[in-house]
């Protein structure tokens, strides 16, 4: 049985793409037409592009007999498939395949999962009842903003909904949470795009959501559980305490004293904590007396407290569950309203929201659907490859599964590549469990075709880094198993199995250095970072400098945006350039900020802030113009004056520095921006920020509206998102979050704050949970904070899964971070609490064989430090694409020099408002199309069809024409007594083409008629003379010339003149 189902475990740096491409080549070389029927699915557009170009590049190389290594691998790959091939055959085949692909490129099916799904969706639009030819909306926030606002606006009208919200608010006020529900609604509403929500929804049979009254009822029920529990304890406690007090008893009269029954009861009343002390339990267990001193009360106390303890044990789970649920259930309760509004949004705007493409597709998919899909999209896929599988979501997989099954059942290749250890996109629905177990389960039927492989060699990092990671993570994982909460480690253990974790270093790179500082987390620094670790970071930077590393060699990895900010500040304060998400924001360019302020100023010339801002940023971008700080000189007059003096020529109206050049008042936003670029000389010092801004303006006005006001609205809500790609030529130290760093690498990697949390954190993260216990089984699912106590609730199992996955996420982050560097890895580990990744790292370093010995007084060192130059590789091969840097761009006013023949018809006012078009021009047009009096009708008809005249006008113009062609003076021109040469042109050898309006010829005689509108001019006659002379050259002896004058607005003959 040939192994057609291949699953590759591709650890960090193991040349995943190469493998993918190799497998692809194996398929297409085996059959040079197979590219048409092979679908490779990558995750990002960039990845798609990279894979395509890799395939092409390899094919080129192979066809030229290069890439021997690969050629060899392919030959025996193919031999396995039973194709005996020599390396020359490979070259030949490659050439053939290359040719095929280059000339049938549209059938070269490598695409992102999204664009593939969208393609399918499009081809089924009609059947799915989606708007045909819909657009794709990428901005989910925008959509949410819109639909939540709509929902809230319904409150005015929709009584029932309003009532529902009243309860909601009341509840919130009870919880001391803010009265402003809009934000929650948006935040939690985002879940309608999440898969967890839908999965719960789909799994559940009956679901009250969607029926607001039932939902409300359920909420009541759940609240009741909560309050009755609390009341039970509080009332009992009250009773007993008062009696105890009145008997003047004290803690000492109770077994366990301050941890005895009395203390317990008081605790209930003061702290609202209901959990009995362990001491009490033991007493109760062996039927002891809860009181030390004999006392008449004891009987009843013992009885009641026993009851309470039992009650507690019996109802705790329900209570916790209820508490967890009520926080968000109000929001989830109205998801169905949101969904219908979403529906509406899609229809009204004819868009699909990219976030719910997979969900929509889900409805279409059934396990035998593939052939139908292939026919609809017009591609019959045989083999399929999926990359980055650990980040694939359930729904995505379910949508792809039929295709995979189809491939396998037809004995074609299905290939899956991924690495559980690098799955860090769970918050984007990515579900690594698929790779871990799901796929194999789902494809059990094909298990005998399955071959699992691990790509063992690490091509990225130097030996010592590979060794370190091997040992480090082995121990790290092992240590977990010794914990009490070991039950949370199953996923970890499976994901970090030795055979998939341990990598071979690739022989060529025998160096590499790791340094880790472990230290207690002390006080925060000004910038919110951590002093000690910042101290270390400074030292590291010095060290790197002296070892000859360039800033661009260094990559600093952080967990959060705020960490990124504080570390960036630090680095730049050390005098290095920083390339960070913030520094890449378009708004960080003062030129851009100037432009925005100018746009604002032009929309409101009394906006003093805009004026000042424009002025200041202008001075900043044009040093030498004026001292920027002067813009803030006290007093508006000064600013006004400075503004007037400083702004460049062309900005103001000539001789009036109070008002802007009128040109700037009548432009759409894109035109305006170009004008400003031109006026403010930005064309002389352009940079990527300016280009990106211009591009943003362009895109916005292309896809939305082109007026300044709405662009400024857009800018307001998007300036935090618009940023430039890290340019190739960026010189600085790269600071980025680990998530962003996935798939990237750097010679040196610094991790300044390796102390993120390890386990679920109730304050931040939420999860979807469900239970089969009443009443919680009445709703499909609940969205609850992931707090520890859930482990005792009805949601325990959901909770445990969530926590295990969270733990895995956070370890994976560490793995991804540690595997980025090729030459050096620096880590600062501020140990804060005894939970968290930090002291896990410390622990591992302490206990790892081979490593622990390098870990002395909190500093760990491993491997050898070599200077950057020693490690620098000889650049291989010449770089045929040359790079050209520039900072000039062209921004010119085109319309001044654009030649067009205006088609519009002059208008003239009669009295206010009503206007009349210039009939003359039109009549002229009509006449010149007219052969003879007989085809007036035709002529009018086509004019009407071309939208020249409206049906209401047809009669009018028909009469005008008839009136003209039957006019005594001219009618013989139209009676076909002579040959008519309409539309005929005369060529002269000077290359001039003459188009007289009408020429009548009869052997050697010719009559020229020219139609003119408006007043009589002498040029008119001159033109005719020119015609005449030409006609004479053409051999017409006797030439007559007439001008037919047509009234501008009347459209009737005003004069016939012989010229």
């Amino acid at each position, binding site marked *: 049985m040939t192994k057609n189902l291949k699953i590759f475990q591709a650890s960090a740096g193991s040349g995943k793409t190469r493998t993918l491409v190799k497998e692809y080549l194996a398929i297409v070389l085996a059959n040079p037409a197979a590219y048409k029927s092979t679908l490779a699915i990558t995750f990002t557009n960039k990845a798609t592009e990279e894979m395509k170009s890799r395939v092409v590049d390899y094919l080129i190389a192979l066809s030229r007999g290069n890439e021997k290594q690969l050629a060899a691998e392919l030959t025996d790959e193919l031999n396995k498939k039973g194709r005996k091939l020599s390396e020359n055959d490979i070259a030949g085949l490659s050439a053939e395949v290359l040719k095929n692909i280059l000339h049938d490129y549209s059938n070269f099916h490598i695409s992102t999962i999204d664009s593939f799904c969208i393609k399918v969706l499009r081809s089924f639009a009609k059947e799915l009842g989606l708007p045909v030819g819909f657009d794709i909306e990428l901005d989910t926030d925008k959509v949410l903003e819109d639909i939540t606002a709509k929902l809230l*606006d319904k409150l005015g009208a929709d009584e029932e909904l*309003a009532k529902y919200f009243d309860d909601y608010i009341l509840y919130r006020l009870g919880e001391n949470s803010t009265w402003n529900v*809009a934000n929650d609604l948006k935040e939690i509403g985002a879940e309608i795009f999440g898969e967890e929500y839908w999965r719960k929804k789909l799994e559940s049979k009956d679901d009250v959501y969607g029926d607001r009254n039932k939902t409300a009822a359920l909420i009541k029920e759940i609240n009741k559980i909560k309050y009755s529990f609390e009341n039970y304890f509080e009332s009992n406690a009250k009773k007993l305490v008062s009696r105890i007090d009145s008997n003047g008893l004290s803690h000492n009269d109770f077994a366990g004293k301050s941890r005895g029954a009395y203390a317990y009861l008081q605790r209930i009343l003061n702290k609202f904590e209901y959990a009995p002390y362990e001491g009490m339990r033991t007493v109760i267990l062996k039927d002891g007396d809860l009181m030390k001193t004999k006392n008449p009360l004891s009987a009843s106390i013992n009885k009641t407290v026993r009851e309470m303890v039992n009650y507690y044990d019996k109802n705790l789970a329900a209570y916790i569950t209820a508490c967890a649920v009520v926080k968000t259930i109000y929001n989830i309760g109205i998801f169905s309203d949101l969904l219908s509004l979403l529906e509406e949004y899609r229809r009204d705007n004819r868009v699909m929201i990219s976030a719910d493409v997979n969900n929509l597709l889900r409805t279409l998919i059934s396990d035998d659907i593939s052939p139908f899909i292939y*026919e609809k999209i017009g591609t019959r896929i045989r083999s399929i490859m999926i990359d980055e599988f650990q980040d694939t979501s359930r729904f995505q997989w379910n949508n792809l599964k039929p295709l995979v099954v189809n491939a396998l059942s037809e004995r074609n290749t299905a290939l899956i590549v991924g690495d559980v250890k690098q799955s860090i996109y769970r918050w984007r629905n990515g579900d690594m469990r698929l790779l871990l177990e799901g796929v194999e389960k789902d494809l059990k039927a094909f298990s005998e075709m399955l071959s699992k492989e691990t790509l063992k060699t690490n091509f990225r990092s130097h030996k010592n880094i590979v060794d370190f990671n091997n040992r480090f993570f082995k121990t790290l994982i092992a240590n977990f198993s010794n914990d009490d909460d070991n039950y949370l480690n199953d996923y970890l253990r499976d994901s970090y199995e030795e055979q998939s974790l341990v990598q071979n270093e690739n022989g060529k790179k025998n160096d590499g250095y790791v340094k880790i500082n472990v230290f207690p987390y002390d006080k925060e620094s000004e910038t919110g970072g951590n002093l000690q670790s910042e101290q270390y970071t400074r030292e590291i930077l010095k060290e790197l400098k002296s070892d000859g590393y360039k800033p661009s060699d260094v990559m600093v990895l952080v967990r959060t945006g705020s960490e990124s900010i504080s570390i960036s500040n630090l680095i730049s304060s050390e005098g290095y350039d920083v390339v960070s998400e913030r520094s890449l924001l378009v708004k960080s360019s003062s030129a851009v900020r100037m432009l925005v302020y100018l746009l604002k100023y032009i929309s409101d*010339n009394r906006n003093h802030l805009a004026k000042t801002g424009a002025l200041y940023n202008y001075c900043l971008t044009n040093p030498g113009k004026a001292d920027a700080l002067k813009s803030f000189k006290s007093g508006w007059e000064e600013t006004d004056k400075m503004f007037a003096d400083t702004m460049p020529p062309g900005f103001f109206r000539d001789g009036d520095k109070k008002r802007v050049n009128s040109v700037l008042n009548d432009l759409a936003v894109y035109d305006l921006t170009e004008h400003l670029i031109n006026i403010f000389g930005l064309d002389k010092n352009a940079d990527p920020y300016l280009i990106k801004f211009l591009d943003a303006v362009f895109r916005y006005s292309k896809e939305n509206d082109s007026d300044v006001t709405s662009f400024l609205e857009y800018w307001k809500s998007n300036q935090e998102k618009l940023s430039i790609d890290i340019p190739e030529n960026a010189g600085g130290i790269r600071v980025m979050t680990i998530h962003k760093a996935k798939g990237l690498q750097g010679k040196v990697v610094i991790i300044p704050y390796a102390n993120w949390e390890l386990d679920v954190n109730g304050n931040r993260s939420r999860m979807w949970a469900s239970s089969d216990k009443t009443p919680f089984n009445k709703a499909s699912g609940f969205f609850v904070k992931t707090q520890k106590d859930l482990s005792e609730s009805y949601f325990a199992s959901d909770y445990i899964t969530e926590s295990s996955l969270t733990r895995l996420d956070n370890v994976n982050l560490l793995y991804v971070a540690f595997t980025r560097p090729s030459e050096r890895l620096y880590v600062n580990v501020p140990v804060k609490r005894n939970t968290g990744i930090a002291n896990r790292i410390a622990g591992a370093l302490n206990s790892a064989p081979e490593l622990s010995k390098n870990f002395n007084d909190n500093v760990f060192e491993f491997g050898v430090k070599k200077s950057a130059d020693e490690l620098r590789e000889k650049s291989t091969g010449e770089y045929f694409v040359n790079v050209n840097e520039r900072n000039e761009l*062209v921004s010119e006013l085109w319309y001044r020099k654009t030649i067009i023949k205006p088609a519009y018809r002059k208008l003239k006012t009669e009295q206010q408002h009503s206007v009349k078009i210039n009939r003359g021009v039109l009549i002229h047009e009509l006449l010149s199309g007219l052969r003879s009096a007989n085809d007036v009708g035709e002529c009018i008809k086509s004019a009407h069809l071309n939208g020249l005249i409206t049906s209401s006008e047809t009669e009018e113009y028909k009469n005008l024409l008839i009136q003209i062609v039957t006019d005594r003076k001219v009618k013989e021109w139209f009676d076909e007594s002579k040959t008519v040469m309409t539309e005929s042109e005369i060529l002269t050898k000077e290359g001039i083409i003459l188009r007289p309006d009408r020429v009548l010829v009869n052997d050697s005689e010719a009559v020229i008629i020219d139609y003119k509108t408006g007043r009589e001019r002498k040029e008119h006659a001159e033109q005719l003379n020119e015609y005449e002379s030409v006609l004479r050259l053409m051999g017409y002896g006797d030439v007559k010339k007439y001008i037919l004058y047509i009234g501008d607005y009347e459209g009737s003959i005003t004069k016939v003149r012989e010229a």
Partner: protein
Amino acid sequence: MPDFIKSAAGLVYKKHKENLKTVAVIFPSRRAGLYFRKELSALIENPVWSPAVFSLNDFVLKHSELDTADTLTLVFELYESYSKYLETESFDEFYPWGEMLLKDFDVIDKYMVDADLLFKSIKDEKEIEQAFPIEAAEQAELFWKNIIKLQKKNEYKDKFIEIWSHLNSVYGHFRESLLGKKIAYEGLSIRKLAENISSIELPYEKIYFAGFNSLNKCEKEIFLSLINRNAAETLFDADKYFVEDKKQEAGHFIRQNMKAFKNGLSDETSGLTEGKKNINIIGSSLSSGMVKSFGYELKKFIEENPGAEKNTAVILPDENILLPALYSIPENPKEINITMGLPFRSTPLFALIRIIQKLQNGKIYEKGKYKYYHGDVIRLLLHPYIKFLFPEQIFGAVRKIKETNLAYIEPQSFLLDTLEKGNSKDILELAFKPVSDVNEIISYISGLCDMLTLKLEEYEGNEGNKIFQLEYLFFLSSNLNRLRDILEERNTNLNRTTFWNLFVQQLNSSRIVFTGEPLKGIQVMGLLESRNIKYENVFILSMNEGVMPAGDTFNSYIPYSLRKAFGLPTFEEKDSINAYYIYSLISKADNIFLFYNAEIGSDVKEKSRYILQIENELKSVNSNLSVSHTIASYSLKKNPDNDIVIRKDESILNAVKENVKRISPSDLNTYINCTLQFYFRNVLKLKPEDEVEEILSAASFGTVFHEIARQLYKPYIGKTVREKDIDEIAATAEIDYNKLFEDVLNRKEELRHLNLTEKGRNALYKSVIKKLLNRFFESEKTRAPFKVVDLEKWCETGISVNRDGTEQGINLAGKVDRIDEKENVFEIIDYKTGDSKLRAFKNDDKFYESLFLNPDYKANLQTLFYAYLISLTENYGKVNAGIYALKEIATEGLQLMAEKFFNPEDIKLFGEELKNKIAEIFNPEIPFAKTDDAKRCEYCDYKSICGR
């Protein structure tokens, strides 16, 4: 380099010198014809009547008895036919779908397909055999096999078959009704022509079909029959390279044609195989980047080759970048000629239409008047077409709207009356005319069009631009007329939404075609327009997959394999046509510049396949070819450092004294948050742009609560309030709540807009406040009894702070929400609606330090501030101060800062600290500067000055 048109002209001249006007030369495009005549005239001695030169379209139009109708009419017709057999949605929803079907029907006729067979739908295996003619069999059968494969009942399959099985009837019905009206779509009329071409008399001795590449079945028929009658000849624009390389898609059709017809022009050109050319491939990120690189290269090129623009073409395969491209054409050349459509979408006029659409659909009817949504009004006023007429007045109006803070505006009284009469006012009167039914709307829009046209004609500024604006307007009004006509003729009455959607859809997809002077200046055109014509230098933009070529995106309802089966074109044919255009363009040119966007993104694909082909194949075929590939990027300059430090020199200091005469807690807070912010806000008085507040903001929410609370407590000033009193207050609140609420809104100008019922959120907040009040009363009861001393008390008093010896006088001021007396301690109370934390008072340095450094302590600061202020103004004796944090009111109730009451010493001490802090403001040594903590910038209005 070869020049097809020139050779064609040569051939025609050679054969027909004597009597050129008896021949007709037919090109794929009119444009080629123009160049043809030019070439021809270069050959003649004396003036001559030109041969008839036109496009194939014109030819068909001339000789078919059917008129080609416009798409809208056709879709209307189709809509009627369709709804006879299948269910339909509203017309505007149907439109795109109808358009697609129309295309499909069109191609069916162009390729003379037997619709019966094509639209046959198969239920099960048995039927498949013999269902299809042999030539179609294989593909079609496989298709239906695959469909039938779905054993399970599948609704989508059923839906597909449902539609598919009716399309033939729809097609039939549609065709008949068109023929009945003697109108047609292209396919239909050419099919008719092809069917009886043999019987058609042509007034020409000879017809030359020149420069054709892809021919549909009808065209082939027509050509053949004319050729057989010896009435026609074909001339092909073919290059060795793609004729001989059988896999080169560019030659796909030419190779076929060369088999089917003979090429009147002796043999293929060799521009690609031997021509000496430079091809420069340039990648840059973002389409703006690409367009600007184009400008840069063009500039360089023209500088190096003066006058070259005459033979230069700029090809824009993506019409959307026309405007950006135009802006990137350097000062030289001095003349530009555009031969392509400008998407109407990208004109300001389109924006205007969308605005008035929103304006009219968003209007509300209140108290017998129509009111418009402020956002739309502002956008309308600021729209170029309105604004340019009288900017100053517009700015005034807009500011007024924002200041008076009205969500909905009644134009007459609010706007129009304030404008002085005159030519600018009438347009607004027109624009704000409320219209509802379709006819009204139509005349409303066309009215606006005409008026704008007039205004523009009179307008002096911005000459060059004007011509284009007028074009746009003309285009719009003729479109509108057409639409109106069609509606009238078919007397269909659409409802308002359908009309708007339809109208906007129409405009959205339409382009304005400029007619220019094709033989002058630099030529800007789409790829199509470049057919057959020779340019020495070509600049081609958007060389990315997805554009060059469009690739595997084909909108048709006829599945791929059926298209194949019946010989209908697929995206593959589309691609090869595209390839033909670009290669025949290159074959004629000397210098070629190819630009692509190198930043891959959601809608940007990799560089075009043609680039790969050129680099890997053409290069090796043609040894005279030099190819360069450049990545053009913009250099990343360090941002100028904008560290803002305002040193207090003489003038600044004076300004500070001038403007800071009074300090309120919030002023102080600003100063503590960021000294620079304080400078901007309190000294420079830079006001942030004001915006109309649609829904209750946190601030107004507070105000409303304050006001209502005050109203309720007013009667009790000076009295002692017991629990039962509070019950009464609560009762009043319960009963009069609506009235109270309304009153507040009416009293407070800035809140007036909020009693708009249709703004649901306000309704919500209204009830929130009510609930808050109830909670509030609950916790009030727990405090009772107490005496209400004063409400909303404004306190202000002068103090003097000492800076370097000299005294500086300044007022402390602020409004105290409420003062109670309880167990003869005076409690200064402030209501807080937002998040706010009050820490217990501690008399230690740490506390004071954070008080004056850390904005999180603002509640404490304010409270103490008031305590101190009161201690100066009144002599209350024992004083305590605190807040009602309404957010925590459920559990917290009134939070007081001191255990029982403040020790006067502490207050004094605080006073001293306060003075020191204030003195700092006047201290010349301490400049105003940015805060280090970027988090404090989050809500600052001056972010984009500071670049935070």
